[in-house]
């Protein structure tokens, strides 16, 4: 169901993603996140193409934290910021963070021990149905993603949407 990946660059840092559909309490979750009560990033899955995209953002966030060069105030807000193709932090939150009316949410956790307790705690907070993370591609709003990341027609012909998105996320600091 959930997907856990240990970052190769930062052994001991595990990134777990959980996807929920039919979420009824998005507003409450968002409030908890803002108050720092949830130890995770709440992402709007319609802006995601693939779980790999989240891994790229998480890896970059951990690296920035490691170098003392985060642009936002916490590791979790940094993940959300990294997903965005622009450097505007509030815009990143608006577009990629979960909003009050959302009916699906992808939760990202970064942890280093056995996660079963953490996952159970989080699952309990979400009033929704947990589904395999791979299903996130069925939730993707392709048109919105293409528009936001400014994916060109030629690009779509020669590569996948995921390629285009990941490249922009990686090159954001210098474009």
């Amino acid at each position, binding site marked *: 169901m959930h997907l856990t990946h240990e970052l190769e660059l930062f052994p001991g840092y595990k990134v777990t993603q959980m996807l929920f559909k039919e979420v009824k309490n998005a507003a409450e979750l968002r409030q908890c996140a803002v108050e720092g009560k949830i130890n995770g990033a709440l992402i709007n899955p319609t802006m995601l193409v693939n779980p790999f995209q989240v891994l790229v953002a998480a890896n970059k966030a951990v690296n920035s934290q490691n170098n003392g060069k985060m642009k936002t105030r916490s590791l979790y807000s940094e993940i959300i910021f990294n997903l965005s193709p622009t450097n505007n932090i509030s815009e990143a939150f608006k577009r990629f963070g979960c909003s009050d009316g959302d009916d699906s949410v992808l939760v990202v956790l970064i942890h280093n021990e056995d996660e079963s307790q953490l996952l159970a705690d989080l699952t309990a907070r979400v009033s929704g149905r947990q589904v395999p993370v791979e299903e996130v591609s069925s939730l993707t709003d392709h048109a919105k993603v293409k528009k936001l990341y400014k994916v060109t027609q030629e690009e779509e012909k020669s590569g996948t949407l995921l390629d285009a998105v990941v490249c922009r996320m990686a*090159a954001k600091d210098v474009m």
Partner: protein
Amino acid sequence: MAKEKSMAAIPEFLSKAELLKQGAEARVYRARFLGRPTIVKERFRKQYRHPLLDEKLTHRRTVQEVRSVLRCRRAGISVPVVYFVDYTSHSIFLEEIVGSSTVRDHIASSPPSARCEGLEPLAERVGQVLARMHDEDVIHGDLTTSNMLLRCGPEDGVSELFLIDFGLSYISALPEDKGVDLYVLEKAFLSTHPHTEALFQRLLKSYAAASKKSSAVIKKLEEVRLRGRKRSMVG
């Protein structure tokens, strides 16, 4: 985690990765990153340079490389996907194009007798891709047949042509720079693959047909051939 230990995350990771090659500029490794086969290009410190200059130069080259790759990608040119860039260690993590071989090996392995005819379609494609790249004002800077990869497509499918190693690349609209880019390829091509003049001519023809700004570029190429590059004939 102690600060010193965590600061060395990437060097630590690379020390366990497979070193593919070491050039004057950078070391290239192969590793698994975020679950995918990845190539890591690390521009290491040059002790012989003044540290401040070294930092600026290395940073600039890293940035140029990333920008060029993204620019090519936006134009629909097949280039590896950039997964992650770390500006502290000047490392670029890119997609490894698995199941590919260099155009160099491809040409070298084809029988000399049939060489020119069989490889014509390839030469045409290379010309087209380079035209596309130059029309985007991307100068590769190190065009050789070793920096072009062919990945076999499905059974009867067409293979995909990739450009790699944008380490010396930059953005320029000048026909002179594009002409020199082609000149570098011509020299490399003809010296690596003897008796392929006709093939290279095919490539140039294809380039000229595909590029909107080709006539000025070809003209410059001819000029550079006569005088050699980096000779401003002044003085």
